């Protein structure tokens, strides 16, 4: 296959119009010694039917799980059919960044609506059009805090998603910022005293997550106060976005930035991507935040319309002084999130409640198993950590039944040996959970 419409006649006529005798002449600027005769090591082209056959075979090499018991940064949720139908509209997915507002009102308005929903959900005043993912959104928020405050230390809770902390580490290292980690206490929440001790006027921001990586809900307001008291800012992450359907958002507790993974909002698991970084903030940071922004304005006749706005923040205008280097973002994923949130509406609260019911059920069932114990006592949304006699054996048994097991916390927290982080969403039926317990038994 190729997708060039050119017939040999076309090519001949075009060569003539250009005034070259061959296509090769157009590549004359490439020094002869670097010209390829043949692309090396490449398989031959395939027909469309062969292509589909090849890719179907490859997809079938994956084992489709019957049940998924892990969350830990990505969440299995039911996606209403409307979402796919909307993001599948060619006008949306074959467009690019809406530089030309007049023929891009569709995407601009949809993103404006998305921003509004995110700001409300996170309890902030503003949100951008999306970041790459939750982890990079968190890292960019931290870099922003350090840059604008001229402070160079970031204080981060150890109960923040380990991968997020790694990304934070990478971004901070690249900018010459340092990181201090704050432990958790026995109930799974942040060690507030340790945080207090870590704060001084070198600290640009505190970074926490609620629910945190262990599923525990954090008490955000005191952290915000502590941060502000020392001139630092509070960056609050979240795990599963659906928790915002029922939990008080960090923005309402004084956080300056709320960042997190938006995948839960209508985006398939997709083995980790594309997802979307949610980035929301207090209004006062409007001119400093990274990423695109859709804004409302009027046309020549006073009619409402939407444009990309505050572009002076962006690299194509301020180049090295830009608020970040983001250019392509995750607009289609944000569109999906917007459609999802509009589709659920107030039912997002019901959905969150259902997640809690399922979680409590699974937790209680598992706790009846011999030798299983709760690790943290703080309230949880839809993830929870349990200590068990042999974590590896549990996951091996589940794997043998085509079930993706729980997240083994020892990977990232050596002290949490034989500790599994389970996740229960509306995708787990009672039968599924009973079966899981049966298998583990």
């Amino acid at each position, binding site marked *: 296959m190729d997708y060039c419409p050119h017939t040999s006649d076309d090519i001949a*006529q075009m060569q003539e119009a250009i005034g070259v005798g061959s296509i090769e002449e157009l590549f004359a600027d490439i020094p002869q010694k670097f010209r*390829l005769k043949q692309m090396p090591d490449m398989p031959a082209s395939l027909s469309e039917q062969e*292509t589909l056959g090849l890719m179907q075979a490859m997809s079938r090499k994956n084992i489709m799980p019957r049940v998924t018991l892990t969350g830990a940064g990505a969440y299995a949720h039911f996606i209403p059919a409307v979402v796919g139908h909307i993001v599948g*509209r060619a006008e949306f997915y*074959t467009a690019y960044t809406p530089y030309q507002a*007049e023929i891009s009102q569709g995407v601009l308005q949809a993103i404006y609506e998305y921003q509004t929903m995110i700001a409300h959900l996170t309890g902030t005043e503003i949100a951008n059009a999306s970041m790459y993912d939750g982890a990079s959104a968190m890292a960019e928020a931290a870099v922003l805090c350090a840059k604008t405050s001229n402070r160079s230390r970031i204080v981060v809770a150890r109960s923040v998603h380990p991968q997020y902390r790694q990304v934070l580490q990478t971004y901070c290292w690249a900018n010459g910022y340092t990181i201090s980690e704050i432990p958790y206490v026995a109930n799974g929440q942040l060690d507030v005293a340790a945080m207090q001790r870590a704060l001084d006027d070198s600290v640009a921001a505190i970074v926490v997550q609620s629910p945190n990586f262990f599923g525990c809900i954090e008490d955000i307001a005191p952290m915000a106060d502590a941060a502000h008291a020392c001139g630092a800012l509070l960056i609050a992450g979240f795990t599963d976005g659906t928790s915002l359907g029922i939990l008080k958002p960090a923005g309402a507790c004084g956080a300056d930035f709320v960042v997190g993974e938006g995948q839960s909002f209508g985006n398939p698991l997709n083995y980790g991507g594309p997802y979307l970084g949610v980035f929301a903030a207090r209004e006062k940071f409007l001119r400093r935040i990274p990423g695109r922004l859709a804004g409302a304005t009027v046309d*020549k006749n006073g009619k409402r319309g939407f444009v990309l706005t505050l572009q002076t923040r962006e690299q194509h205008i301020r180049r090295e002084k830009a608020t970040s280097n983001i250019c392509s*973002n995750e607009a289609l994923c944000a569109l999906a999130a917007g459609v999802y949130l509009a589709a659920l509406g107030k039912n997002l609260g019901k959905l969150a409640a259902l997640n809690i019911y399922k979680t409590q059920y699974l937790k209680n069932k598992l706790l009846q198993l011999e030798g299983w114990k709760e690790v943290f006592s703080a309230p949880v949304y839809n993830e929870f950590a349990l200590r068990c006699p042999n974590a590896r054996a549990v996951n091996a048994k589940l794997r043998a039944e085509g079930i993706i097991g729980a997240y083994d916390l020892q990977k990232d927290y050596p002290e949490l040996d034989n500790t599994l982080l389970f996740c229960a969403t509306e995708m787990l039926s009672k039968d599924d959970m009973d079966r899981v317990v049966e298998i583990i038994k």
Partner: protein
Amino acid sequence: MELIFELSKPGRSTADVSASDVPVVNIEDVIGRQYLRDDLDLPEVAEIDLVRHYTNLSRRNFGVDLGFYPLGSCTMKYNPKINENVAALPGFTGLHPNASDEFAQGNLQLMYDMQKLLSSIFGMAEFTLQPAAGAHGELTGVMMIKKYFESKGQKRPIILIPDTAHGTNPASGALCGFDTITLRSNAEGGVDIEHLNSLMTEDVAGLMLTNPNTLGLFERNIEQVAQIVHSKGGLLYGDGANANAFLGKTRPGDLGFDVIQLNLHKTFATPHGGGGPGSGPVGVSEALVNYLPVPRIVKNDPTYSWSASFPDTIGRVRAFYGNFNVIVKAYTYIRSLGTEGLTRATEMAVLNANYIKEKLKPYYDLPYDRVCMHECVFSGNRQVAQSGVHTSDIAKRLIDFGYHPPTIYFPLIVPEAIMIEPTETESKETLDAFCDAMIAIAQEAKENPQRVKDAPLSTPVSRLDEVLAARKPDVCWKKP
């Protein structure tokens, strides 16, 4: 059109939630009142209204599937439908990233093969697929450069960026803590070798070069450029956003590039999604392999697994493994085109750009009049001088002719720039019709400049007030 919020009415909803099949607990008991939110003010709309809202919104949006979209530097080529179908296979969409490797052998093989194919096509030692877009790839690449010198114990605070470079290049350099110095272009649009020679010291970590550059011109002196950078111990970074210009014709690895990021959403035909997602793999030469982000895929025949045991790594630049589903589309594209198809794509892309260049040359200023690669850059200077019609006016007027405007006012070194990238998927008929429109507008700019300045006339909204939007920002709707 009304906002989704304006359609909202209490009691309506599109998506319902199943009744619980497990005991219902009291939420306040398990969570605690203080952690619960007070209100949840999302739109309440019925499915029919939601579908009509977004369907009608989509109809106010221009995409490649509607018509020609010559947005220079963005490579808005046709996105083959089979790739969409492949990427929607449940085997690809349904797997959780925390699934153990046993579950994901198909995905792992696909990504591993993809890295190998990209290595072959671009002549690099190895690729990472982790970055989420081109700029993210730049950042990753520059981080590896930083790490490389750090591990050698060298302090090199500077990175060189040509004046033609895309804005993400200096921004990425800056986000890695580098000072960026601008490298001048010469009269023929290439690197000013003398200037490079003068700037290239042992304080300089490297040069971020786009080749062909954003004028659509191939760097004729690439060998010399690489030699100068390398001779001072620096590294040559390649912005591969323009790779559609040379597939099968040359390889960055052979040209002397040490790092290169790709934009799969450009070169390899994945849709741009109204702004994303993209995918920005980074390829490196042997010397930089150890610094690649983790995790990396390891092949232990016949299985594949993830490994994070690479002590020199820069770490992670995002969670999980990359924009997997975008990679599936790009992989499908590469496999279906094969060697021949990819080479032909490049040939036709370059043919198309040169064809437009020749046809429009009499009507618009062409600042660098030489054979171009996959795109060509005009200037609207003549129109400004003649009648005060600016490039932005010409762009808006093109909308009325049914086209998406080209990229404008970039690259910065061309005043009133008009950057046209037709891509290989457009037919001669389409190019001819587009050129006719451009010529008609040039004519109109002379005869009836006001009409051009009033454009667009055919859109649901007329020209929007961007100044107002920036002066009084309204980025979130508030209930009246």
